[in-house]
């Protein structure tokens, strides 16, 4: 899956996902990616988030929505992502997944569980090229 959040030059946000899902899924199975609030979520007043991992679990918790709402309450992106992941592993300690979050002003962060180290991609006006960031899970 790719999950993406963009803030354009006017400060407007958009988010999106695209995936072919899980290997050997039961035919007809759909994961979190096409569900707003699960695979991705954006609100121009706050920021956005996008998730990746075990979609059968993530769609039960709407982690992207949770992260955006936590940022609305004042959390920084990394803390908001961590909080959303913690809510999942409380019920599913074997869960594997990650979340990237970004504020409307462009600060960003990520959190993960079960992947060892999670790598994600960023480009902003202060970077010369696309930068791959990493976060320990």
């Amino acid at each position, binding site marked *: *899956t*790719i*999950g*993406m*959040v*963009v*803030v*354009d*030059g006017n*400060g407007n946000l*958009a*988010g*999106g*996902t*695209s*995936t*072919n*899902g*899980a*290997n*050997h899924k*039961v*035919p*007809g199975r*759909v*994961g979190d*990616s*096409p569900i*707003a609030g699960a*695979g*991705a*979520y*954006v*609100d*121009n007043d706050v920021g956005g988030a*996008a*998730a*990746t*991992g*075990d*979609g059968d*679990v993530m769609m039960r918790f709407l982690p992207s929505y949770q992260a955006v709402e936590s940022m609305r309450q004042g959390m920084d992106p990394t803390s908001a992502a961590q909080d959303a992941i913690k809510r999942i592993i409380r019920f*599913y300690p074997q869960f*594997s997944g*990650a979340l990237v979050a*970004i504020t409307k*002003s*462009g600060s*960003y962060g990520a959190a993960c569980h*079960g*992947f060892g180290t999670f*790598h*994600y*991609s*960023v*480009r*902003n*006006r202060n970077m010369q090229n*696309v930068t*791959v960031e990493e976060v320990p899970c």
Partner: protein
Amino acid sequence: DEVFPVVVNTWPFTNATKTAWNVLNNGGSALDAVEQGCKQCEIDQCDGTVGFGGSPDENGETTLDAMIMDGVTHDVGSVADLRRIKDAISVARSVMEHSSHTLIAGESATNYAIEMGFKEESLSTNHSKKIWEDWKNKNCQPNYRRNVSPDANKSCGPYKPTKSLRAATHKNKEPRFSKDISITNHD
């Protein structure tokens, strides 16, 4: 401090990030950037987890899910279980812009896409066929079915539900399977 424009995406899919960034630099909107960035990953078949030719289902078919959301208007367009159409994120944007719905799924999503001008073609590749054949040769392991007969941890289907399940407690139901989720197998 404000540092936008900004593109951030899950995984080190740098080509997708670069494409989205270039769209912004050429005057495109955030929605344009998300669509084209995700589309780049569909073309590149990022890690085999995006686009055609990856993650075959039990029947060996690749199906696609995609969603796009506008932070200004809260508009959303999604497709799920999309069959035989490669341009999943663009079909999702079409749902957002050419219907009042949020999510269209399955064969009907395919019909919608064809009606809106998208090309119908197989999503299978020699690689996805090999993944599926290897899985079948390993007695359909790993397997997402549970509480079925024959035992999905050992055998291929067809399956029927285990009759005693409704009398089972939370503890003696088979645990939820997710061990196979990894960097190359994820939503």
